[in-house]
């Protein structure tokens, strides 16, 4: 199976404001600047309202920045593109298609021949361990299986970049841990550029080459941290804990408190 390598993303002063009913404007994202290397795994982490999904939607081409520009390999992002795949928190599988039909969807748009399409789709279903479920209906699957189908669907068109919007947020801790591991394996094999959004700090550290820490009201990039740990990362190691402490320190004190109480329960499973 041929592999297309990732492309770099350049975010230059990208900001987003929304008008309100009273005529004021809400600053969803303060001008953000970020360079993402090709094949890099970048995780945006922060509380709700920090603009991480806003930024992801701009990069995916679903919404336009109020100011600034984002580029992929030097080309301005002007709309959604099949070269930039996406995995959604709510899976977004097409319920009128069976499992393999979902994985084949993007390949149909690309004009891949029927036979080749099946072959590729089966390859990626095999990769996520669902080859035997190819002809099942989508609503027969569990949440974790649905997200694996969605991941196979995103990889099948061989995009250079994959965006993931809290993809494991709705899953139980064990499934989450398993899928994080699988995702890393696929990323190491294919070297796509991945931009991953989460509100879980341990998940961010477990996955990322670099963690982009964002804070809310107004949404803004607070700090960018490099994670120099070898995969698979040990969430109980001192080095891991140090980075975790550093990130929590960067987040507002009040916020860090509410987040750590929420996360300490999930931390075991979420990494």
């Amino acid at each position, binding site marked *: 199976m041929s592999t297309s390598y990732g492309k770099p993303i350049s975010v230059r002063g990208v900001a987003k404001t929304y008008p309100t009913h009273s005529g004021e404007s809400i600053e969803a994202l303060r001008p953000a600047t970020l360079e993402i290397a090709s094949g890099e795994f970048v995780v945006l982490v922060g509380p709700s309202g920090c603009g991480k999904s806003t930024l992801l939607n701009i990069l995916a081409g679903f919404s336009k920045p109020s100011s600034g520009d984002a580029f992929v390999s030097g080309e301005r992002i002007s709309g959604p593109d099949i070269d930039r*795949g996406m995995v959604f928190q709510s899976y977004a599988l097409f319920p009128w298609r069976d499992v393999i039909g979902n994985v084949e969807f993007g390949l149909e748009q690309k004009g891949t021949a029927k036979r080749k399409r099946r072959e590729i789709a089966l390859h990626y279903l095999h990769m996520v361990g669902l080859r035997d479920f190819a002809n099942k209906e989508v609503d027969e699957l569990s949440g974790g299986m649905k997200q694996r189908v969605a991941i196979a669907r995103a990889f099948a068109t061989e995009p250079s970049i994959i965006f993931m919007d809290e993809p494991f947020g709705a899953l139980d801790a064990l499934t989450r841990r398993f899928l994080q591991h699988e995702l890393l394996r696929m990323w190491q094999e294919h070297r796509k550029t991945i931009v991953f959004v989460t509100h879980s700090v341990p998940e961010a550290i477990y996955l990322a080459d670099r963690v982009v820490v964002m804070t809310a009201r107004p949404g803004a990039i607070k700090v960018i941290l490099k994670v120099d740990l070898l995969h698979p990362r040990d969430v109980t190691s001192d080095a891991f804990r140090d980075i975790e402490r550093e990130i929590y320190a960067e987040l507002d004190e009040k916020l860090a408190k509410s987040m750590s109480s929420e996360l300490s329960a999930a931390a075991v499973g979420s990494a």
Partner: protein
Amino acid sequence: MKSLGPTLQFVLAFCVILIVWQTVIVVFAPHPSLLPPPLAVARAFWGLLVSGELLVHTGVSLMRVFSAWIIAGCIAIPLGIAMGWSGRFERFANPFVEMFRPISPMAWIPMAILWFGINEPGKIFVVCIATFFPTLISTVAGVKRIDPVLVHAGQVLGCRSTASLLRKVVFPAALPAMVVGLRISFGTGWACIIAAELVAARSGLGYLIANGMEILRADTVLVGMVVIGILGVCVDAVFRFLGRRLAWGVT
């Protein structure tokens, strides 16, 4: 047993109606030209069936509803998709829809007779109006209810043009709602064709009923009514079956 359940219920209801009917005959002994007993109606039914008359009238009525329903659907579904998809187009089209919608299709019968006489186009026109609105409203609602995340998924999976997005994502996602609209509209169309045929027709179940009344054959009138009821239930059952196979709209 599952599929037998609803059928049994209908058979049971049918039996109850027959018993009540027969009881009324025994207790009040009405003149047969006012209310004939079930057995007499059954005999009339058999007579009309054997002569072929009943099949012809039924076929004519069904064909009228069917063709009008198809024509209306071919207009209502694309229009409904456009209205559900584009807020701007909906704001433009909605006042027109809302002004025509409260006018009962029956109110169009006089105009239909003026314009088309008592020929086929007049009846098809009236039924078109009756079947148009339920299909349109349901399609608009179905398209609006689509999870925007499915549209986004379609976009990142290569649906570059609005046309391909509508065809590959919006249409299948809204299909269950369209089938519901088509089911409801067939019902309203079926009710409407009888009214149109009562007023202006030389064939069809409505004509059979109107004619039965004129020649004081209450049994013929009742045969017509029974066939209308049974066919209504049957067509609805077919749509419900189709709707269950497209269950993704429900979840």
